[in-house]
């Protein structure tokens, strides 16, 4: 029996960006839990703050961004106790020891994430030797095993090759090998397969699912693709303009969406196997300017259910059942449409 306890707990996180004297509340009060052995998918369109949420946890924010409020608690489960990540110095010793060792991250584009002038093997060894007190030989042995585990063919030759000699899918595998090298408790994957072809994407998903089962790793996956969500997620959080507007298990959110945005989003994507006759209903309008946001509910200008009340303030969280949360005052009308 593997435990599914919370490893990272994010509460009311607010990360703001400042430029030209203006403020962009990119993440505006986000709360969620990442549990070990589970995949949480954060899904949303570009500019909704999903990547900023991930970089906030890793403290990898650009200089003009700041965590204004809220807390990110990492539960180590050992003598270190609970660590408040938001209080750590961005590039301090503690933060650096967490990164990679406890919380690892993989990025969308493995070519820019890997250093082109070092061999892949060297980069993974560096990671191991940075975090653990092992010899060079030991590190190399472990790297070889990692590469083999990730399904890289010919790993004994590949370990001494440079990133440009790898194909896209293999680079992403190398990235995952590096991320898993110190057995992290949490793996943050920021659009890990967006740059890859679907057949390669399927391979990477298979690999990630295997890792989740084997190491009981908690996975936080950032994506824009509803298809990926339905395939991979145990739990889903839908973001729009800096807020989580709906969250719950994959079945709850995708099967019976309660927020107008989730519902509209699901109706605007063509679904494979439904043929030519399927109805596509685009969401009208465009996402608002992040520096000039609507006063109340962020989705109000594009929403079919909107009333006057909606422009007053952002609706509170409403809990439906144990896991399903929605931030909309009209959610009862949405559920009628099913």
């Amino acid at each position, binding site marked *: 029996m593997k435990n599914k306890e919370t490893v990272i707990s994010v509460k009311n996180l607010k990360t703001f960006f400042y430029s030209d004297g203006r403020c962009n509340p990119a993440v505006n009060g986000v709360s969620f839990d990442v549990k070990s052995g589970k995949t949480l998918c954060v899904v949303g369109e570009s500019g909704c703050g999903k990547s900023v949420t991930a970089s906030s946890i890793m403290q990898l924010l650009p200089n003009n961004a700041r965590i204004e409020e809220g807390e990110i608690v990492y539960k180590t489960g050992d003598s270190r106790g609970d660590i408040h990540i938001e209080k750590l110095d961005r590039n301090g010793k503690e933060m650096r020891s967490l990164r990679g060792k406890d919380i690892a991250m993989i990025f969308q584009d493995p070519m820019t994430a890997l250093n082109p002038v070092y061999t892949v093997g060297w980069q993974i060894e560096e990671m191991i030797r940075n975090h653990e007190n092992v010899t060079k030989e030991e590190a190399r042995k472990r790297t070889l095993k990692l590469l083999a585990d990730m399904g890289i063919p010919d790993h004994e030759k590949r370990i001494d090759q440079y990133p440009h000699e790898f194909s896209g899918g293999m680079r992403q595998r190398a990235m995952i090998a590096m991320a898993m090298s110190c057995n992290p408790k949490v793996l943050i994957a920021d659009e890990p397969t967006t740059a890859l072809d*679907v057949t390669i994407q399927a391979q990477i998903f298979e690999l990630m699912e295997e890792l989740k089962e084997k190491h009981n790793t908690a996975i936080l996956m950032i994506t824009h693709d509803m298809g990926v969500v339905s395939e991979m997620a145990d739990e889903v959080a839908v973001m729009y303009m800096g807020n989580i507007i709906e969250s719950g298990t994959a079945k709850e959110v995708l099967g019976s969406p309660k927020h107008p945005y989730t519902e509209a989003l699901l109706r605007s994507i*063509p679904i494979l196997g439904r043929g030519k006759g399927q109805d596509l209903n*685009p969401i009208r309008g465009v996402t608002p300017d992040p520096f000039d946001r609507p006063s109340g509910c962020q989705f109000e200008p594009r929403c079919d259910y909107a009333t006057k009340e909606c422009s007053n303030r952002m609706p509170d969280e409403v809990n439906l059942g144990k896991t399903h949360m929605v931030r909309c005052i009209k959610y009862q009308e949405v559920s009628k449409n099913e």
Partner: protein
Amino acid sequence: MSNNLREKEVLLTLNGLATYFPIKKGLFGKNTQYVKAVNNVDLTIYKGETLGLVGESGCGKTTLGKTILQLYKPTAGEMIYSFEDGPKNLANLSKEEMNVARQKMQIVFQDPQSSLNPAFTVYQSLSDPLKKFGIKSRKERRQIVGDLLEAVNMRREYMDRYPNEFSGGQRQRIGIARALCVNPELVICDEAVSALDVSIQAQVLNLLMKLKEERGLTYIFITHDLSVVEYISDRVAVMYLGRVVELAESEDLFANRLHPYTQALFSAIPVADINHNKKRIVLKGDVPSPANPPSGCHFHKRCFMCKEVCKEKEPELRRFEIDGKEHYVACHFAEENIKNA
């Protein structure tokens, strides 16, 4: 559906079309090695249909589109296009003739950001082709550009703005308007909606379908997204390493996938439906390099049905009929797959 397609007029026929790119120069400057981006493709495009062209990156789908527009010179084969004054081979046209022919065929690119000139207003970008194709008065051109912008659901006043003032979806609609401004017959959409957010993607897809109805356009819709292809296409061609491996009417292909590659490709698509029955076929390995493709069937190294014959003999694209509908497959075991389907 199938019968009236067959009765339809043929717009463009590709016969043994091939486009190679030289990559290595030998002694005395002779080309010794080629990337066979498009390799012996036969296709027929009918008037008024949408032909979806799908495949993974590097399979040659974009090269095929650009070869039709003569942005690349084909290495071999012919492209017969039915002009008003009779069919002509596009590959043999002189530069002047091709310039005139370009009025008939236009392209919409993937990235609207980089395909619009940032220093030109929308009017300037859109009026250049009009000028070239003989509309001399400025007033008339402004009228046409305004009408076009309205046709793509944008405001007439936008024509004096610069591309950076628009969002991605709007820019893509400007790109579509530019393709339409010379009244083409054939529009090649090269990943036209791939760079857009899903909510915007649906807007552009519906716009493309509306324009097709109104103007009687023919589309070649190039994309890697099968869900989009299913929604928009009448027929779909699946490409792998420069070859068409399967071609059928959209509904037919989605019901019976005969080529093992098509089967794997379809099963790998994440479907945004929680009740979808997942049965993923995970292929081994990567797409081989088109510079050095495997012998015989290009797919044999990743194929789960591979037998000896696949390694030696290249399968031809053969015509089958399933329930009276045309279905082309390039696989040695097509008959077997039809039986199982």
